């Protein structure tokens, strides 16, 4: 797992290495300073050194403190540089990876979860990384350094650490191993509680309309109480840390005073040495605590690391690897015995045995019930998904032979769940083609019947759409999306139920404009309204993942039961 994240220090290797180094420098000073302190007491104050010695050593100590301060501040700077660089690289890699994902990869993670991984999880890992490079070397070096100094001061007395260090270490390990599953449980319950809140926020109208406030309150109260219990269960173990640390430390101090005191009385040790030794107790046990905290942090952030690595390790299942750099020659489409399922494990394929030939420039309508796999069928043309078996040909070539950019530049899809981005209308339309001239943009808007309402806005094409295009209505959004797709000037244009919020008259106007302007363009229209596809050259009726009939409107009315049924359900209003 670490191996996957390691390359993210690229460009910041220097800082990643320098941080622990200067931290060790700081530790060195911190370990040496007590020694100077001892000299001040033993030689300067107690002994024969006198004032001048005390002053000399005092100045030395100030200098050491300044050096340590410098190292510490550099550590802060290098650490920040390294960890923020690391997280920048990590975010970049994740973002780029997601951009390379196929639709299938995206479906697997869901966009919401991807966003969490790029924000919260990266943040978590970044903090652990910073903690790690600053502390993972500093603490052990401090532990060993202080231990060496203590032994140096009085080897016999250092035996106490042989008892104290294992006891404290073992207690920390026990606390952590016991606390971890309890914290996991707490987080699970916490997530559940928060998702309850979120549900209530989204569905507040339903809650109020059905007078379910009390019911939801009761549900939440139970959830909040479960969180509370789990929190108590987890933290009651963690709060043992502090008293255990204190007891160990105090016990060590008392033992050192007793044994050391006796040594001093016996003339084997100086008073200053004794107090220095006590300072080292602080450093040794303190760094031991620090080490256990690093472990804790790593354990906590492991979940985030796993989630990030999952994304990094996911291979985009649609790539350019076997493609050649050829252009799409014409807008012909062919399906050869195509079957498709979203999941390999699925019992029944979503699309089965599709054989279909569409000539360049044809206009095709697709009709079918919700869930009959209309969207799935057209998704295979720009290779948003790869077929499970069979093959899809565009311009006489298998779609897998094209570079994705070449293919998708010529196959323009207006998705059912479409999205506009923050920015002005013009900026959004330019997505289709960055080189598009203003005339081309206006022409596309005219064809999509979007020019009227755009011009009615005070800022016209410069109107800011807001995040997700909140500033326009559903029908307006659909027409902007169509215009955006038109600007691409594709050889194949696919509209997936893209005029559902547009009224019939405008819908007809758009189709008329298509006929006039996009004569050479193969156009595929998925619709719920018969009127939207009536004039198509051919209409495909999909039923349960299979082609139930192909033909013109009049032919299908005569031969296809499903088509007739749909037609009838929409005509009822017109007959009387």
């Amino acid at each position, binding site marked *: 797992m670490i191996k996957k994240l390691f390359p993210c220090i690229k460009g910041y290797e220097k800082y990643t290495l320098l941080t622990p180094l200067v931290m060790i420098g700081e530790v060195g000073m911190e370990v040496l300073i007590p020694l100077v302190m001892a000299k001040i007491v033993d030689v300067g104050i107690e002994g024969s050194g006198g004032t001048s010695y005390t002053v000399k050593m005092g100045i030395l100590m100030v200098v050491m*403190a300044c050096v340590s301060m410098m190292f510490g501040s550099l550590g802060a700077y290098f650490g920040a540089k390294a960890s923020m660089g690391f997280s920048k690289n990590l975010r970049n890699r994740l973002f780029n990876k997601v951009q390379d994902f196929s639709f299938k990869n995206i479906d697997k993670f869901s966009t919401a979860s991807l966003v969490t991984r790029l*924000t*919260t999880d990266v943040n978590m890992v970044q903090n652990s990384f910073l903690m790690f490079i600053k502390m993972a070397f500093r603490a052990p070096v401090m532990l060993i350094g202080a231990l060496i100094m203590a032994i140096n001061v009085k080897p016999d007395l250092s035996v106490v650490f042989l008892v104290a260090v294992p006891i404290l270490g073992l207690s920390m390990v026990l606390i952590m191993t016991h606390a971890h599953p309890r914290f996991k449980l707490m987080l699970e319950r916490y*997530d559940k509680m928060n998702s309850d809140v*979120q549900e209530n926020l989204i569905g507040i109208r339903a809650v109020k309309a059905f007078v379910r406030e009390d019911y939801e309150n009761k549900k939440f109260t139970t959830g909040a109480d479960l*969180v509370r219990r789990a929190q108590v269960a987890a933290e009651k173990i963690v709060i043992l840390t502090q008293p255990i640390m204190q007891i160990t430390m105090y016990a060590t101090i008392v033992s050192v005073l007793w044994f050391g005191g006796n040594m001093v009385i016996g003339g084997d040790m100086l008073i200053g040495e004794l107090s220095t030794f*006590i300072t080292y107790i602080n450093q040794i046990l303190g760094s031991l605590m620090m080490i256990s905290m690093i472990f804790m942090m790593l354990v*906590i952030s492991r979940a985030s690391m796993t989630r990030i690595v999952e994304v990094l390790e996911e291979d985009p299942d649609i790539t350019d690897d076997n493609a050649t750099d050829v252009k799409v020659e014409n807008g012909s489409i062919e399906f050869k015995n195509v079957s498709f399922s979203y999941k390999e494990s699925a019992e029944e394929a979503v699309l089965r045995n599709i054989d279909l030939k569409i000539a360049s420039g044809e206009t095709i309508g697709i009709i079918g*019930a919700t869930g009959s796999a209309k969207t799935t069928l057209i998704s295979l043309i720009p290779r948003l998904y790869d077929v499970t078996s069979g093959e899809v040909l565009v311009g006489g070539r298998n779609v897998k032979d094209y570079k994705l950019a070449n293919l998708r530049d010529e196959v323009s899809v207006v998705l059912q769940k479409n999205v506009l981005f923050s920015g002005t209308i013009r900026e959004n339309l330019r997505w289709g083609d960055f080189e598009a001239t203003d005339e081309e943009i206006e022409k596309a808007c005219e064809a999509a019947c979007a020019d009227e309402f755009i011009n009615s806005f005070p800022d016209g094409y410069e109107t800011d759409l807001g995040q997700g295009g909140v500033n326009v209505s559903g*029908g307006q959004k659909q027409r902007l999306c169509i215009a955006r797709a038109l600007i691409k000037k594709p050889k194949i244009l696919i509209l997936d139920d893209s005029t559902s919020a547009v009224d019939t008259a405008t819908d007809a106007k758009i189709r008329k404009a298509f006929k006039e302007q996009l004569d050479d363009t193969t156009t595929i229209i998925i619709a719920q309204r018969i009127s939207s596809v009536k004039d198509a050259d051919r209409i495909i009726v999909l039923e349960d993942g299979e082609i139930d009939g192909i033909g013109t409107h009049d032919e299908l009315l005569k031969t296809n039961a499903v088509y007739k049924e749909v037609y009838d359900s929409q005509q009822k209003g017109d007959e009387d």
Partner: protein
Amino acid sequence: MAGPRGGGPGGRGQKPLEKPKNVGVTIRRIFSYMKEYKPMIILVVVFIIISALASVIGTSFLKKVIDDCIKPMIDGKTDEGMSKFIKTLTVMSIVYVIGAASTFCYARIMLNISTKALYKIRVDLFTKMEALPIRFFDTHTHGEVMSRYTNDVDTLREMLSNSLASFISAFITVTGVFVMMIYYSWQLTLIVILLFFVIVKLTAFIGSRSGAYFKEQQKNVGRANGYIEEMIEGVKVVKVFCHEQKAKNEFDVINDDLRKAATKANTFASIMGPLMNNLSYIHYAITAIIGGIMAIKGVHTFSGVFTVGTVIAFLQYTRNFAMPIQQISQQFNSVLSALAGAERVLSIIDETPEVDDGYVTLVNAKIDENGNITESDKRTGIWAWKHPHQATGEVTYTKLEGRVEFDDVTFGYEPEKTVLNGITLYAKAGQKIAFVGSTGAGKTTITNLINRFYDVPDGKIRYDGININKIKKADLRRSLSMVLQDTHLFTGTVMDNIRFGKLDASDDDCIKAAKLANAHSFIKHLPEGYNTVITGDGANLSQGQRQLLAIARAAVADPPVLILDEATSSIDTRTEALIEKGMDSLMAGRTVFVIAHRLSTVRNSNAIMVLEHGKIIERGDHDDLIAQKGKYYQLYTGMFELS
């Protein structure tokens, strides 16, 4: 929206310093959540004091042991030296044990109190949220409210379980150490005071610098997260337009800006530690020099002659003095931001809930031979409005039929922008009334007024002849059922979600309702049938299926009035035709308000209202309106556009 674990451990360094507006009031209110644990809190404070004192006194024993026990014995002055040495160490151990035990006790009790207080705050927050008017949710985004539960309550939790105790303990330690210092040597204490001012100044300086950098960082975090959210939510569109490379390049720029800002903010935040730490060493050196000179000169202090032991103890105190000050300065920011968060939480708890001064209630009723309506305590299937008249004290009963009247209703979500203008309409019991018009014409607003999601002045809207403002909201809403355009399902089984309409409905009732809505057949095909668990707002169901469930949910509630707001917009026409029968039987005998885009759905209504800019511009049944050759005719024949 970002993950529910928003704050997360370690995520706190990212917040800019926010200042609470009214510290005193906020603290008092947080403590009011712990009111019932008052004796426990006093106990906690006592334990904290004991624990802090123990560490101060324990340190003072260091001097005692060295000065009074070890030193005399080196000089061989005393014979009872050894026993005194042992006695002092024993007392010292006892003090330490008491200290550690107190530490444990206060932490344990505090854990109980703080988690209970948090629990109460959460429940209060949620209960309040459920009681807030729809208007509140119009003006606050989900993310905003959600972060009250995650970030704000979390930092509060941090404060209650950590900061508070260490704050008190640090404060006591500092005071205790300070007193001991003065006792040992007021001369050296002067240096301490000097240092203290340096620390305060330094903290203020770095704090203001890092505050500015944190703000900058926060701005960049917001920008990067916004971009991530937008580009990942819309990644399918990005791919369709082959925009991957451009998105990558743009993100790289935004991401690097974030890195730069974050590096600065983080450097300043973590420079504090080494600065403080080493200042205390410098302080130590200065104290040692001056103390050493004083000891050699034998200066007098409150505790007697200044000795080597005094210097050693004093030096130990300088270390003990620096640590809690460092702690306080670190905790200070987190306490402030926790209080700011608490204020935001409390501000929601302080919001005015939906006003409900209705006193007309819905009761089970019996009708005797004379047509008199009386209350019944059994379920009779007949419902009546129980109307106690305040003036006369008499109680009248009106049968629940589902008549709805609007009398010249004018309404706007914001006072200066009216959405409805002089709407007058009358729906007899069992009639089907349809609203047709463009987005923003006010169709949904009308239905929002019927169930009092928003309030209008008295007497403007009547239900069975009763001013709806007099009807208890819960009872009013129970007598109405809504199927909304966006169906929201809740985590739970399919059965639970249908039962949402009426909690005491039996399984059979739910299945019957599902059959009525034509949802039965698809539910049967779900892996677990009616016991299939729906998660994430029904993400595993199609739009159409969710809508069918919503219709079943309304059917099981069995109310006299039904509001269908674009209820069938996501269902294809063939399926719609299939459920039409179900819908017809659902609508039979009920007053129905229908909002629909597809005119075919509304054409058999008793009355169709064409709305434009909040006004009814045409009304009548289908044939009337076609004959009028007005807007409806244009719409129907496709000459005019609805958007």
